[in-house]
């Protein structure tokens, strides 16, 4: 393996590292709250007389801890990691430094400031409204203002990427945008468009209301605006993992990406279809026409298509690698893959669980079938496979090469890292299987199940709940290993890093793709048109019957 002695873009690397440090801190604290939840489900509320929800400073209740879990994991861990990662991927793919490092750091500073602002009321139990903050639950205004600043700061990341891209474009007229940069730009562009919903919710409903400038709010409209952003956010988490699967994992596996054009098509379809689907989170809501719900169900099945393209392309790339390593036959190329490489293995295990997450997602998406699972623990099982594994375990795998690459120090122990990845995989399989089954049995999510009086009526739930605890403990062990490995890598490890920045070539390269795939305007316009078709009718209907009739409540 070649060693890049001169690491390029050190300054951008430090900016990315700053993002990663915040992300990892959030993962650690948020993950610990998950441990408590899983143990509560298994009937354990204290260990050796130490009660999680009573004896910890800053933890006031199950639901405050659940707010921390949701906010820290799906808003902070993901967003901060992604912003750092996309910046670093883009400058490396374009081989162009960030247009303005100062602006890059200012963006990071704003995001961190917003996070700290939001953290204050969460920790003081003044924002126990979960990460969805559905009104008329009413938190401290700092919570809404802080989260708004985090979102606004992500727009700054898009600006950074676009300016850098334009610099590159001026010097490289007529060249195809390198695939990782193309994907990073699409991810940020899609995300930024989608934030219109949450921005409007915050600015027009939540912030004025929480400050007391208006007396009431409209809970249905707030939900609709929230989910306008709330579905695309899952693609904002997922697409960076796809960037690694498409443009890095094939190289790490010793092969090539199967089809660069097909990868571009998939990402453009995500740009088109990720946003006009948010109503699939509101199938069970009153006050929304059937036709509008069904139209967005249709688009949701549309967005399944680029995921299937991704499945094919990534598996074909792995097969390419397996055969390049001497594998033969229909399936036996699989054993030739570099299963001894923790970064690779973590990401492939993430892919495997993601396949199940995707299948479960189809159930959720299926309009009336959603009635069986909506807001049950099935959904919790589902998104721990997707964001909790496909995304999180992939990011962990990325850090197994990226932390050595950035710090110049060899990974403390590749073998321990392999144990970590497998432990997460097995723990998650148990945990998520149990939650899916409990959901089919009608067990609600977002509930302190271990203390619920109705648990006594449900012997079948009681027989499955211990597996939530066992799986959760395995995931906790895996998380502890993960942090141990990273910390020892940057502190103790003495050997120089032996990693390179993985850049996969393609079997069928960008020159095989039609030029329209490298134009932005038609796709951005297409995205806006689909959003208008999906969202103008329900928003007009809701605004025309707007009623700011709900005062705020603080039932915690």
């Amino acid at each position, binding site marked *: 393996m070649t060693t890049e002695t001169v690491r390029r873009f050190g300054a951008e690397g430090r900016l990315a590292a700053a993002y990663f440090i915040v992300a990892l801190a959030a993962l650690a604290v948020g993950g610990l709250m998950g441990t408590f939840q899983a143990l509560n489900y298994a009937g354990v509320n204290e260990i050796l007389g130490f009660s999680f929800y009573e004896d910890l400073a800053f933890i006031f209740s*199950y*639901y405050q801890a*659940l707010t921390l879990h949701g906010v820290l994991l799906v808003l902070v861990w993901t967003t901060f990691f992604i912003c750092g990662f996309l910046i670093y991927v883009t400058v490396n793919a374009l081989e162009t430094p960030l247009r303005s490092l100062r602006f890059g750091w200012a963006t990071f500073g704003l995001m961190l400031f917003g996070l700290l602002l939001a953290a204050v009321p969460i920790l003081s139990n003044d924002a126990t409204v979960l990460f969805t903050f*559905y009104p*008329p*639950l009413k938190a401290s205004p700092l919570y809404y203002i802080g989260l708004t600043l985090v979102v606004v700061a992500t727009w700054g990341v898009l600006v950074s990427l676009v300016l850098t891209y334009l610099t590159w474009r001026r010097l490289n007229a007529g060249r195809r945008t390198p695939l990782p940069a193309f994907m990073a730009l699409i991810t940020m562009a899609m995300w930024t468009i989608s934030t219109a919903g949450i921005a409007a919710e915050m600015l027009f409903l939540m912030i004025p209301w929480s400050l007391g400038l208006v007396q009431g709010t*409209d*809970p249905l409209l707030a*939900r609709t605006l929230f989910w306008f952003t709330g579905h695309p956010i899952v693609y904002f988490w997922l697409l960076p993992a796809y960037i690694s699967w498409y443009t890095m994992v094939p190289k790490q596996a010793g092969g090539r990406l*199967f*089809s660069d054009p097909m990868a571009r098509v998939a990402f453009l379809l995500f740009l088109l279809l990720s946003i006009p689907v948010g109503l699939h989170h*509101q199938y*069970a*809501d*009153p*006050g*929304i*026409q*059937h036709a509008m*719900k069904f139209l967005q*169900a249709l688009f949701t*099945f549309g967005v399944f*298509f680029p995921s*299937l*393209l991704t499945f*094919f392309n990534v598996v*074909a790339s792995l097969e390419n690698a397996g*055969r390049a390593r001497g594998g033969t036959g229909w399936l036996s190329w699989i054993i030739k893959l570099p299963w001894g490489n923790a970064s690779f293995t973590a990401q492939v295990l993430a892919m495997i669980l993601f396949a199940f997450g995707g299948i479960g997602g*189809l159930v959720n998406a*299926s*309009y*009336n*079938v*959603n*009635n*069986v699972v*909506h*807001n*049950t623990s099935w959904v919790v099982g589902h998104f721990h496979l997707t964001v909790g594994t496909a995304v999180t375990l992939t990011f962990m795998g990325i850090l197994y090469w990226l932390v050595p690459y950035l710090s110049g120090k060899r990974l403390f122990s590749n073998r321990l890292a392999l144990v970590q990845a497998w432990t997460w995989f097995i723990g998650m399989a148990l945990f998520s299987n149990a939650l899916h089954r409990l959901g089919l049995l*009608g067990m*609600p999510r*977002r*509930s*302190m*199940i271990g*203390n*619920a*009086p*109705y648990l006594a*009526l*449900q012997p079948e739930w009681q027989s499955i709940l211990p597996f939530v605890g066992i799986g959760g403990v395995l995931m906790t062990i895996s998380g502890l290993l993960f942090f141990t490995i990273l910390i020892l890598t940057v502190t103790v490890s003495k050997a120089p890093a032996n990693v390179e920045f993985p850049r996969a070539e393609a079997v*069928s390269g960008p020159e*095989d793709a039609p030029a329209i795939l490298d134009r932005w305007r038609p796709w951005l316009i297409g995205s806006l048109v689909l959003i208008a078709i999906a969202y103008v009718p329900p928003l007009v209907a809701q605004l025309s*019957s707007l*009623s700011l*009739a*709900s005062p705020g*409540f603080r*039932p*915690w």
Partner: protein
Amino acid sequence: MQRPDRMSIYIYEFAWILPSIAIPVAMIVAIAISAFAMGINVQGVTGRIDPARVNETPPFDRPGLRQVGPNRYEAVIVAEIWRWVAATPDDKSRRVELTVPRGSEVTFIVTSRDVIHGLKIENTDVNMMIIPGQISRTTARFDIPGDYLFVCHEYCGTGHHFMYGVLHVE
């Protein structure tokens, strides 16, 4: 592996693309038929209410179960922090119980007086968000006797997990 020529890559790609379109299309067609031809649907626009005047607004001025026809019932339920109100207002129990004979068709008419709640009845299709300002409505048929737990499945404060009831089918 030798580099496959461009033509065979296209063939592989299309061999995957066609079923990737056909399968989701078949699924959504099946869903459309079950929803709009067979009537297994989600709730649509179901009426509005002033959340501050739930007590005075029929039918929520008199929550509870009533028979509206042979084998047909209406369950009028008010969700509030942290209980389902389906009886006289002075019943302060957190657990509410309803009883219907087997073979009954029950229409649930539900709203919230305060924050968002969620109603799910186990082993049925009944699964609705209960949003202040909106009226939720759905109908289910109960042919199998037994106790059906119904829970609140949307976070509504620190007592959320105390909010439940049981529907007895005799």
